């Protein structure tokens, strides 16, 4: 599509004027506002975070000499290590549960719903548009000591004492996050199921595969891109979640974002906060790349 500048080397000015009228230039011009904005408001700030992570906090200003001390602290201090590992563990559990729970409903809407697909999709996505803060707060109201669940169960006479295992701990965080991210897992899986050519399934049946064999040999491998996308969409943001652990996590459910916020807030040690945030980002990125890479290998082996 893009216009190639005319050969024969006209004057540079003429060539540039020619380029300005080309499709390529039109595309550039239109894209540049959003691109420059992202450059100034995202790339530059992220670069700044990287720079600051090598500085040292003094009372109100920074000591701008280069140091690796913040990273040393972020990676060796047991508190940060525990929080980091816990964040990864909680997010990992949330990702696996959410994706496993989401698959059947995506499958149902894609394969069994005939006329009301858009309605089902709308129903699934609506709760995601209501305030995240409020949804997390509602889980606090539901799962609290005198919360809706406990008071309701006592009212019904099913239990005498409030259940305590659902109170302010890592389990609560998992339940809340699995609820909040459900639509994000369902949609990508649904889309990849929709893309499956139905005649492939008939072919598998004609060639003698039973329903279960067919599912594992045809449907699941073909839906794998959606499953991987769903896993990443859930995993990446949940590692850095702040609201849920703070509201329903208690002390044993705190995660890495809480300590990062603390460094930028009360502890006012922005360089350490920056080092922690970047370390978390790098770890999450590495795990994501690993997931994508191993799934590619898996599907390749399947194809053979």
């Amino acid at each position: 599509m893009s216009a190639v500048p005319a050969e024969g080397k006209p004057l540079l000015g003429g060539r540039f004027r020619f380029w300005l009228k080309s499709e390529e230039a039109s595309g550039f011009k239109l894209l540049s506002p959003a691109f420059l904005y992202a450059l100034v408001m995202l790339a530059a700030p992220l670069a700044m975070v990287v720079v600051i992570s090598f500085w040292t906090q003094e009372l109100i200003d920074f000591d701008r000499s280069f140091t690796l001390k913040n990273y040393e602290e972020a990676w060796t201090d047991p508190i940060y290590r525990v929080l980091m590992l816990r964040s990864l563990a909680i997010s990992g559990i949330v990702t696996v549960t959410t994706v496993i729970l989401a698959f059947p409903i995506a499958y149902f809407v894609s394969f069994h719903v005939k006329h009301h697909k858009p309605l089902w999709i709308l129903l699934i996505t609506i709760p995601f548009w209501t305030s995240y803060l409020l949804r997390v707060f509602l889980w606090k109201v539901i799962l609290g000591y005198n919360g809706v669940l406990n008071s309701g169960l006592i009212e019904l006479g099913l239990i005498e004492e409030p259940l305590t295992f659902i109170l302010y701990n890592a389990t609560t965080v998992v339940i809340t996050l699995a609820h909040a991210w459900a639509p994000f897992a369902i949609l990508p899986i649904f889309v990849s199921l929709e893309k499956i050519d139905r005649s492939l399934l008939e072919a598998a049946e004609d060639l003698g595969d039973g329903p279960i064999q067919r599912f594992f040999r045809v449907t699941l491998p073909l839906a794998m891109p959606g499953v991987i996308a769903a896993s990443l969409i859930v995993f990446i943001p949940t590692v850095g979640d702040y609201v849920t652990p703070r509201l329903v996590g208690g002390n044993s459910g705190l995660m890495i974002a809480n300590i990062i916020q603390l460094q930028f807030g009360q502890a006012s040690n922005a360089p350490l906060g920056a080092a922690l945030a970047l370390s978390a980002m790098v770890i999450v990125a590495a795990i994501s790349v690993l997931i994508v890479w191993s799934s590619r290998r898996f599907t390749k082996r399947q194809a053979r």
Partner: protein
Amino acid sequence: MRQGRWLKVYSLTYLVFIYAPVLLLPIFAFNDSAIVAFPLTGFTTKWFEELWSATVMHEALWNSLYVGIATAVLSTVFGTCAARASTRFDFRGKKAAMGFIMLPLVLPEIIVAVALVVVLVQMGISLSLFAVVLGHVLICTPFSIAILSSAFNNLDLSLEEASLDLGETPFSTFFRVTLPLVAPGIVSSLLISFTISLDEFIIAFFLTGTDPTLPVYIWSQLRFTAKLPGVVSLGSLLLLASLILLLAAEYFRRRANKKAGTEGDGTGGFL
């Protein structure tokens, strides 16, 4: 189909799980008790009356409206240009540039918030509602692009060509042909960005100075048990507002698809 029936039961149960917390909002908003718990004690509208006279909350509401409207307009302008560029033109580095603009979709919000705080403080810009707008535009632009890309994709290029052939300038072609055809997409993008901004907490929490937005105000109320019924009633009003905005956005999105003569894929245009 026995398998289908089991899947249906499962899916309906799942929907109940998704909706259960949200349904509590209207129930407890009208419950006549200072504690948010069962048993229900009686019907009241006093929590809503309290909201009517809560001046701090009103200020937070105005702050949120200001941030939301500014965010919606800016990100839709960015989104319109970028969606047009990516659907109509082909050029070197397009994929990389688009990927970069869409990056905030997959970055944890706390990273975005932290990065913006650091840079604003370093540049000596004080934290304010304007700073919140800057952050919100960053995370809303990808949504605008997604919505508007599908609107532009559905656009029949021959209509524009016809207009140019009939002697209209590219400028007037854009305003007389292209814009009316994608207008529903633009309205949908405005509504969606506004809704996202209205509900967004983390970036607002980091960047707002002394003026809270509505979610930041709600956050400050959560510490006090006595304030919870008020928060619940405010929450149900917010829920209602989000629902109306959303259904309006969905209506316009469908009209956009209908105008272009396609049915759309039913996924909300976000994928």
